[in-house]
């Protein structure tokens, strides 16, 4: 499997301290534990204290990583399930919905907007949220819990 990284993914990996090897492993080991929307996939894996995501596309063994990102907040239970997001979960071919999922960090549990598949109980967070609101939220938790 040939995996290349977009400039945007490389830039964010540098900011977040993510390693290419870790992102490759997430893609290679995802199997059906990933969601898809057209030719685009998102797979995730908990590595240490981080939930790390690979947003990638491609076929025939040629993969381009469009985005690689992470959050420190731990994913807990689905709180709300909304309308169809356009994504599907490869493991059970069920539609992935827009929703909200509880996140835990430093002992506090709060919810955030997510992609959810209610039957499996799985949740995913998109890159704009992980790099924006969730990163800021982590900073506020660290500051306010100190």
């Amino acid at each position, binding site marked *: 499997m040939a995996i290349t990284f977009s400039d945007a993914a490389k830039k964010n990996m540098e900011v977040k301290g993510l390693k290419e090897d870790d992102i490759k492993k997430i893609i290679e080991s995802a199997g059906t534990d990933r969601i898809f929307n057209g030719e685009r996939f998102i797979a995730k894996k908990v590595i240490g204290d981080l939930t790390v995501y690979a947003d990638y596309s491609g076929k025939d063994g040629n993969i381009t990583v469009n985005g690689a990102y992470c959050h420190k907040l731990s994913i807990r239970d689905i709180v709300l399930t909304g309308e169809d997001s356009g994504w599907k979960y490869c493991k059970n071919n069920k539609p992935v919905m827009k929703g909200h999922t509880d996140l835990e960090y430093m002992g506090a549990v709060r919810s955030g907007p997510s992609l959810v598949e209610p039957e499996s109980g799985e949740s995913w967070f998109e890159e704009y949220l992980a790099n924006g609101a969730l990163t*800021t939220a982590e900073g506020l938790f660290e500051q306010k819990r100190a």
Partner: protein
Amino acid sequence: MGYEELFPTNDLNGWHANAAKRFASPFVDNYHDRIDVDPIMLSNAAVHCGFTIRDFYEKPELGIHCVGYIAELFDLLPVTHWFFSLPWVRELGMTLVYKDTLPPIPTGPIYEPTAEGIENLKPIEKEDLLKGSTIPLFYNLYDYVQKNLPHTLVPISYGFDLVGASAELIGVENFIMWTFTEPDLAHKLVDTFVETSINGADALSDKYGMAMLIVGSVLANNDIFADEQVEEYGAKKMGHYVDQCFRKGAGPQIFYHLCGNHETSYKVFRNNLVWSPFTVIHVGYKGRIDFPSELLKQEFQDVATCMGSVDTKLMINPNPKAVYERSKECLLDGRDAKKGFILGNTCETPPYTIPGNLLAMTRAARDFGTYGTW
């Protein structure tokens, strides 16, 4: 002389340090001191400091300094805010005038209530907002706070009343009629204001790295509309606004203000809004009574910090005991909300709120807003 020279510094190590810890506590499950009080104080802060309502709105830096300074007197939230209900409308062509006893108000509708009348209405792009009046106003305001009241700074971008502000463009009565007769045009009006507000949040977060979002459903309430319309024009547009603002880097803090009577329409918000880890939800009235904290808690405690409502009418009534008793009731019903509770008023506390009534709210929070297992 700058406005900063009119005010002594807050007690930073004493009052502010404790209030800041208390303010953060419901959001990070690290309960401290007592439940906080936020009477949504705007021009009342200026009145307390000897200025006028007009001063508050005409001189934003003075106004926000009054808010930051006077919070210490009543032991309120240790953060500053300054706003009025019609952001972005000047960029869309409206003229606002200052009044002695009111926030800025429009001189009147600017579009004919016809399809042709709003044919050229388009959202204002971020680059054009930077050259307008709202963004420069808030940049100047937050720069002033950063320099003079840095301990109180929370950059806030306002969508505020997405429906009400849009309605002003053609006249509120015409807009209400359009929701029945010309829904496509009514949507175009609201969508134009929403997209403009999103671009505004983008500009704010570009500069400050984040932007708390304040957005409400004010005109879209049960005194005017059925639940279906509140959902269509209020809740769904608010959800879209926050979703898009988040995609542009704003948030993560959100304050949802469901103003006025949401007797049954409160039910249409839970599934349509975006809930971030730092969200506060506030509902004004259920029918003619201040919204019950117990019901607020039942509906929203899984997704947000709840803010209870003490009727603003009580705040100008010379009867602090009545405020104290209603605050007590509010606190006893809401204080065990899963994601925290704040004691508030049904809307902005009136400009001529009686100081003894604000003290009554804080007194009640000290007496009954304690944390523990009840």
